[in-house]
């Protein structure tokens, strides 16, 4: 069963192609991540999914609804955690939940029970009658998540759900998202935290310039795109060491600033050599999603202006 089906999805603004022929299937019940540098087309893809903008060409199906034609019916069954805070500052925590529920036409005893549940889920029961302006960043984010769940959605779309949060607040959001997954809810999230993607996502797509560069589970992506071991070396003689030893001992090396990254399947010889070099420091670690991401999308800054 697919929750989302995209075929040849393309969105152009003038001569600028922001989403460039994306084909994707998100399965029901999975956590699917969209990764990519700024300007990769993540947010535009989410807006297309929600029917907030019409595709230039291609097909979108969300929960079996054709988008954008049936976007209204689809949105009744979807929860959204937007990137930008849109809580009502004039309302308390519960008033925010009741007001948002009213947009879905929800009311009555069932809604009251749901609000109690959501306050608990967001760990905001003690703050139920506090004004939104008195909440910390983490609490606001949790309230936004609780608000997105008011209609018991089958699919929750989250645009950078933990950006700007401290580690504790982030952990709490992750816990809540995991417990949502156990209830069978499908999650689609964008992030540029590789750790978040690796921990939460069953599968993910790495996007750049509107295209899918790679697709798979975090483990599959690491296995398919990068050597399993990474040794980061730096120190005064690192440049000459790279040419004389590094590039022969590793399958691939890359210099970024003062650091040489050595990618390898067998790091024994490399490590043996480095232990004889008191002028070089090194970190030895397994390859991560971040290495895949940087390899595929490049190390240069992506600073395209945002809309």
């Amino acid at each position, binding site marked *: 069963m697919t929750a989302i089906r995209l075929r040849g999805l393309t969105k152009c*603004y003038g001569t600028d192609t922001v989403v460039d022929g994306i084909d994707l299937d998100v399965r029901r019940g999975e956590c699917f991540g969209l990764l990519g540098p700024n300007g990769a087309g993540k947010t535009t893809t989410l807006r297309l999914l*929600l029917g*907030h*903008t*019409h595709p230039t060409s291609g097909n979108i199906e969300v929960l079996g609804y054709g988008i954008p034609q049936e976007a*209204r*019916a689809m*949105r*009744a069954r*979807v929860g*959204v955690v*937007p990137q*930008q*805070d*849109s*809580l*009502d*500052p*004039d*309302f308390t925590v519960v*008033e925010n939940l009741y*007001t*948002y529920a*009213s*947009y*879905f*036409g929800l009311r009555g005893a069932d809604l009251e029970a749901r609000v109690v549940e959501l306050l608990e889920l967001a760990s905001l029961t003690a703050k139920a009658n506090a004004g939104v302006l008195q909440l910390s960043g983490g609490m606001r984010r949790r309230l936004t998540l609780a608000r*997105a769940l008011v*209609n018991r959605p089958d699919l929750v779309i989250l645009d950078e759900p933990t950006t700007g949060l401290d580690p504790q607040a982030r952990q709490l959001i992750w816990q809540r998202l995991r417990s949502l997954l156990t209830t069978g809810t499908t999650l689609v999230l964008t992030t540029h935290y590789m750790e978040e993607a690796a921990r939460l996502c069953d599968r993910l797509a790495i996007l750049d310039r509107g295209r899918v560069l790679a697709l798979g589970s975090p483990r599959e992506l690491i296995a398919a795109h990068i050597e399993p071991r990474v040794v980061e070396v730096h120190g005064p003689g690192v440049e000459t060491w790279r040419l004389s030893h590094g590039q022969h001992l590793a399958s691939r090396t890359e210099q970024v600033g003062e650091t040489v990254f050595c990618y390898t399947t067998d790091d024994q010889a490399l490590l043996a050599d480095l232990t004889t070099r008191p002028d070089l420091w090194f970190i030895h670690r397994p390859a991560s999603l971040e290495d895949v991401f940087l390899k595929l999308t490049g190390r240069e800054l992506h600073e395209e202006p945002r809309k």
Partner: protein
Amino acid sequence: MIDWSLPSLSGRWIVVWRRNLRVWRKLAGPAVLGNFGEPLLMLLALGYGLGGFMGQVNGLSYLAFLASGVVCSSAMNTATFEGLYSAYTRLSVQQTWHAMLCTPLAVDDIVLGEAMWAATKGTMSAFAILVVMVILGVVHDPIAILALPILFLTGLCFASMALVVTALAHRYDFFLYYSTLLLTPMLLLSGIFFPLEGLAPAIQMAASALPLAHAVALVRPMVVGAIMPASLVLHLLVLLGYTAVALYVSTVLLRRRLLA
């Protein structure tokens, strides 16, 4: 790609209206004080103070003449402010409309809900002036209550016009073009502070091309108990026409802005 289709008039706008009512109720104290206090002071000062020099205007005391016009401009001002500053705050600062668009609500529902709400607020402030007029002894006939639907329509008309401006705005200062270049001249030349009849024909023409003069022409005889003008239907059509066109244009512009 611009969606030129007519606004879909479903009943969903009511939840947008209710959301705004809920916010208003939290801040109702100062709002009600403002609704009553300002017109009361203005009518006392100008109506009695200035009126003392003027005698009768078009067969009415100056206080009655002024108050029966101000009731219209108050509906206009309140609805306009709500459609400009408050609506823009919800559109851009608070992202309220973006949140609504993540639910089954559509842009058309939001625009209609906002226009109806701003019209409601306009009617509330106009009603406050009617109450002040009763207290000051200007309004005697309960038939004056029939002016409320016209005042609501006046509010809806100016709310819709304000939403057109909001749809084009990218900062609050932009609204000064609209209020300085259009609203204020219209306010001064719509027969609220002095009768239009003595003005140059060109100015009279300009005034009658704009909606406020028509609202005044309808509301003034209703509240002071005078005979309704023969051109009643024409005045009503002008108000309805402005409302319909502005509602349509603001919906199209906001669809373009929010669903780009």
